[in-house]
């Protein structure tokens, strides 16, 4: 049995003036025990998919099943077995850290003791403050507590909508390690994130943009399908460099990626020395061009262009 199956799901929101299609004919499935990532920018339709799967929203068209249960007909049964952490998740600010965790543990029919090992890594950092009210925690601490609250129960399937948004890099790493541990216990996990670097930590990912799924595969396969050489280009004048590279006749695409610009070339003969001399002509001294392996984000950009 598959953990999650979506078939041709369509969800539109009507405003007074226009109709917005948030989810546009989306189909995919998640295997049992799989860590599946929905990767896409804000407004791609990730949250709508989560809400449809957690029985909180009704789709306009299509059908969806969670662990073989229909999200419309069997919504009560689904609510008994899934774990869910909404993107907009707030804690009770007037309860203490410990009370929050205890509350969520209890309403999910478990205790802190029983599943302590699931959240231990993150919760350990919070334990010195366990009698402090959640409203008085720092932003990152709040998110860690929210994660602990979402993970304290041991559901058969876990839906996490952008759990790491607003969390510092170290905690993000710890969080993903926690997810791996949950996965090892046989829990199927569907997670969404706008961070492309987290994508490669999933078993499989779906790249989603404007309500449409562009690609579903393992992160490695997606990277392999890039099918081109990718170069990191750096010079002293980065802003001009981006425009100049884009103007270059053999350039297929060039995007700013932190310290470097990622450049891919059209399917014709090209020569790195030729590019270098072109850049020098444009006044870029000490320009470096380095071949690199493409990442998920490069693939995302490439797919977006198609």
């Amino acid at each position: 049995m598959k953990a999650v199956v979506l078939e041709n799901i369509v969800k539109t929101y009507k405003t007074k003036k226009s109709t917005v299609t948030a989810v546009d004919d989306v189909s995919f499935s998640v295997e049992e025990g799989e860590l599946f990532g929905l990767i896409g920018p804000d407004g791609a339709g990730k949250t709508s998919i989560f809400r449809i799967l957690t029985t909180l929203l009704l789709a306009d068209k299509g059908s969806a099943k969670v662990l073989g249960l229909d999200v419309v007909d069997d919504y009560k049964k689904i609510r008994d077995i899934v774990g869910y952490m909404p993107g907009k998740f707030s804690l009770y600010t007037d309860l203490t850290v410990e009370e929050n965790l205890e509350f969520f543990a209890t309403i999910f029919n478990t205790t802190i003791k029983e599943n302590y090992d699931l959240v231990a890594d993150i919760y350990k950092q919070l334990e010195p403050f366990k009698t402090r009210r959640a409203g008085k925690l720092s932003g990152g601490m709040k998110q860690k507590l929210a994660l602990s609250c979402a993970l304290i129960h041991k559901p058969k399937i876990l839906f996490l909508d952008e759990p790491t948004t607003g969390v510092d890099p170290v905690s993000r790493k710890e969080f993903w390690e926690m997810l791996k541990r949950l996965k090892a216990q046989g829990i199927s996990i569907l997670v969404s994130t706008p961070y492309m670097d987290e994508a490669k930590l999933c078993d499989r990912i779906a790249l989603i943009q404007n309500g449409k799924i562009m690609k579903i595969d393992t992160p490695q396969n997606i990277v392999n399908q890039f099918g081109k050489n990718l170069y990191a280009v750096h010079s002293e004048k980065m802003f001009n460099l981006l425009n100049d590279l884009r103007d270059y006749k053999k350039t297929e695409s060039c995007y700013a990626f932190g310290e470097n610009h990622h450049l891919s070339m059209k399917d014709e003969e090209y020569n790195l020395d030729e590019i270098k001399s072109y850049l020098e002509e444009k006044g870029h001294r000490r320009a470096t061009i380095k071949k690199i392996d493409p990442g998920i984000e490069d693939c995302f950009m490439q797919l977006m262009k198609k």
Partner: protein
Amino acid sequence: MKQLMVFIRKEFHHILRDPRSLLVLLGMPIVQLLIFGFAITNETRNTNIAVLDNAKDQSTQNIITRIESSRYFDIDRTLNTNGQIEHAFKTGKIKVAVIFQPDFQNELAHANKAQIQIITDATDPNQATTLANYISAIVMDYQSEQNQQNNLPYTINTEMRMLYNPELKGAYSSVPGVMGMILLLISAMMTSISIVKEKELGTMEILLVSPMKPALVIVSKVIPYFVVSLINVVTILLLSVFVLGMPIQGNIILLITVTILYIICALSLGLLISTITNSQQAAMLVSLLGLMLPVVMLSGYAFPIANMPIVLQVLSNIVPAKWYIIMVKSVMIKGLGFAGVWKEALIIIAMTVFFIFVSIKKFKIRLS
């Protein structure tokens, strides 16, 4: 069961850890009861009046003394000419002017007829009527005494008795009114706000997806406010008995029972409000405008229902507070038993069932 206990404890934490709302919840009834019981009152006492005595004889002096010695009036000034009357009213110090005709005693003795003019400030018509009546009563009183001395062959005496509230205390109407208002406000407004707050916080999303049944969520939301309301009932009753001097004539258990019925009705109304609003402000606005106003205006607490236009009289029937106030007055003041209030109790129960039914129909098991 453990879920329910933890949830209820969480709700109590919310209430107890917010000192301001706690103060409002428990302090408001006390303040309101004392304000309505003592400060704002329809009773007239020590009203300032002016006297223009054109006769200055024994009869007029006698009447003036009687007026002055009554607890309703204080003589603020004595006037000498008619011209001063209007000025006295315009300064706003006096509410009534009493004018005796010249040669009062002579006229009374020989023509069997003498005139006293009573002028009142009718900017407040009800009060003006009351004051004029009081003065007339004092004059009549004097007259009947005179008549007895003269041994007239026949006289008609009217004897009044104020049943259930012989001292005409304002507390007798303000206590039931405040109870009707406070309990509705706390139960309905606070419950609806606390449920809507979960929607705003986004925690409702988790609660919906959790194994916890929506009915249990509602029950745990409602119970703490039920307890708070009961505490308020006890404070109000203690205050009204020991501070306002208003005894409970009827069975206290019956009084508490009808009050519990009313609280449950108010809680279900709060539940209904929470299902139709999505923000705390909206819930508060609906509660205040939709509940407070009708309770004050249409429950018979501030204005007698019998005096209202027929449309409002009909409309007042759908205000639960009206029926509750009738029940409280019946049990607390008149000392009636269950037989005297069962109709009203049945109406409250029917309303509760209706509110709960609509709430269940309207309760959103999904987000939209």
